[in-house]
């Protein structure tokens, strides 16, 4: 996770490393999450008459939107080799800043702008610590996130701050063509993420930097700029998630985001992206997000005690980590 960059001028530029050809076992490992998602959908469909209804599927889409948006940002940063775990704090500061400022009579647009600036500053600060001070991204973003969460509590005076006029953010709870707005936003984020990573030069650079930062630098890729870019993308998407949470709850609470750590990292790790960088895709992360969302929804519908839900969520995460370990071990052979 440390951004150690050794410049070796004169080395000819190189294209991103070609993807290794997967053997059958890797292919099976790769499709495992699709099978798991399909199996969960099948089981819940049989077990609950409510599960496979349009209304419930849209509920799942709405519920996973926030996790999905956050996970997309974390995925992009992780592909570049940087694990950003400050997203929860960005949600908190976003929701709290907007609620506090609008309560103080500041126009909504200005309050939202302030929240965007604050969120992006978190990304910048992460970048400075990681790129210029060479501190591990886990440590940097954990430290920055902790400080920002403290800042959110300070701004809110430790209180839950209701929006003076929740209708301003009622668009978050609206539906367009029957689809929940947060779900549509999440879909847009994933389409943009897919295009970014697979169709643009920046996307190729992100993979290259995550795969081998030294080689990428030798190839003329602006590694530091890539790191800053992915961290800003991650923070920016966390701001977006913060606005959605604010609209959904009608209040800014400095504790928002604290519980997202498991679900977001779980979804990302479930996709098989690993922590090494250079691999992964937002499409696979989306499947991870859906698995966790379907699991949460289906178990409530079945009336399963929440302790078992937590147990299962943990088991899924362990499974994801084990699968990644196997994959990594196979690659290292």
């Amino acid at each position, binding site marked *: 996770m440390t951004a150690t960059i050794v410049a070796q001028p004169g080395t000819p530029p190189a294209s991103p490393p070609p993807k290794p050809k997967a053997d059958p076992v890797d292919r099976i490992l790769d499709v495992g999450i699709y099978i798991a998602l399909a199996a969960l959908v099948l089981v819940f469909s049989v077990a609950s008459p409510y599960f496979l209804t349009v209304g419930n599927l849209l509920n799942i889409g709405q519920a996973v939107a926030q996790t999905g948006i956050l996970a997309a940002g974390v995925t992009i940063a992780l592909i570049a080799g940087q694990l950003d775990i400050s997203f929860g704090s960005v949600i908190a500061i976003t929701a709290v800043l907007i609620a506090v400022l609008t309560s103080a009579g500041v126009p909504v647009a200005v309050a939202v702008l302030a929240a965007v600036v604050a969120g992006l500053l978190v990304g910048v600060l992460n970048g400075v610590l990681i790129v210029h001070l060479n501190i591990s991204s886990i440590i940097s973003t954990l430290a920055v996130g902790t400080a920002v969460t403290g800042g959110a509590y300070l701004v809110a005076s430790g209180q839950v701050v209701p929006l003076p006029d929740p209708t301003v953010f009622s668009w978050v709870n609206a539906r367009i063509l029957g689809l929940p707005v947060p779900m549509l936003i999440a879909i847009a984020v994933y389409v943009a993420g897919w295009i970014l990573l697979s169709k643009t030069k920046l996307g190729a650079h992100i993979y290259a930097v995550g795969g081998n930062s030294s080689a990428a630098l030798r190839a003329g890729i602006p590694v530091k700029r890539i790191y800053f870019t992915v961290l800003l993308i991650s923070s920016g998407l966390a701001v977006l998630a913060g606005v959605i949470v604010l609209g959904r709850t009608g209040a800014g609470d400095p504790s928002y985001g604290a519980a997202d750590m498991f679900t977001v990292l779980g979804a990302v790790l479930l996709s098989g992206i690993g922590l090494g960088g250079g691999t992964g895709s937002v499409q696979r992360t989306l499947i991870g997000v859906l698995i966790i969302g379907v699991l949460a929804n289906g*178990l409530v519908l079945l009336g399963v005690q929440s302790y078992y839900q937590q147990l299962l969520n943990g088991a899924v995460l362990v499974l994801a980590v084990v699968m990644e370990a196997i994959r990594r071990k196979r690659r290292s052979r």
Partner: protein
Amino acid sequence: MKHFSGLSSALAVSATVLLLAGCATAANSSAEPPAAGGSGDRYTQDDVTTATGIHDVTSVFSVPKSLPEDLNLAYINPSLGTPFFKSMSDGYKAAAEFYGVDIHEADLGNFNFADAVNKYDTISVFQPEVVGILTPSGAGLVDRTRADGVKLLASGIPIEGADGFIGTPERETGMLAGSVLAEGVAPLVDDEWADQEVVFVGLGQAAIPTTMERVESGLEGFEAGGVEPDSAEFPDLGKSATVADGVRVMADFLTAHPEQAIAVVAMNDQAGVGALQAVQAAGRQDDVRIVTIGADEVGRAAFKSDDGIILGEVDLNPWGAGWRWVEAALALALDEEFVIPAPERVITRDNVDELYPED
């Protein structure tokens, strides 16, 4: 490797297969509680007393024996991992079974209030008549339930715009706790604590005003009980008010007040038990007395085993609170009124075994 890939999906599938109190609603405070005896088409207080056994629930609404078919309720529990809310869960499930209605439950985990609307969306497929929740940020839920035509019965913390509220009257609860504390501390002030400054400590959560009202009223009750502290402080327990939070806050407080005598009203049992542990760890048993509010299993266990530092526990009867939520929800569903008496039962060393013999 194929084995592990298959295992991943198999595990996911098999796992899922295997795991297949004082004030009433804003509009309902004038209703009379159920009559004590008699029979007829409604359950009486005697019926409820018999049904609730040692939990000794005071009914808040005389529920009709014949309820509309398919009437069902939902409750979004803030934290089933917290003993108080687990007991409450057991209580509302028992009441639902007794009255013959379905109740669907969702859990916010560890007070993850940001997820409340999502949890509501999930259980809304059951089309409950009334949904309950304890949350400090319920505005979004008000909009969602209203759009669905579902009644929102706030629990514990009032929600502006909700259809009703049922919970503990914080002021009366705090006053009662403070008076119990004063009764136990007064003899000490005249004797062992005569040369010490007396500090009143209210352990609450700054982010949740109702908890602060509870412990601030504790000071009021303490003073009304005849003890005038030299100072009063209200350290913040933080987000979840767990035992660990109580230990942390009280340990720091004891360090900062090495010479003083300290009288504590804790907003819940967890904070009180945490404070007790901090006192024991610091060896300050002679300097501190505590009254907790709640009387859940954790609180009662600590009370029974400690050496006199906890003077008493105001019994909010969490199991009963769950039962009463169902009664209030049924009243709301039927457009009728309900009432709740203020808590008046205090657990002391004299009555704890009698009130909770199964502990």
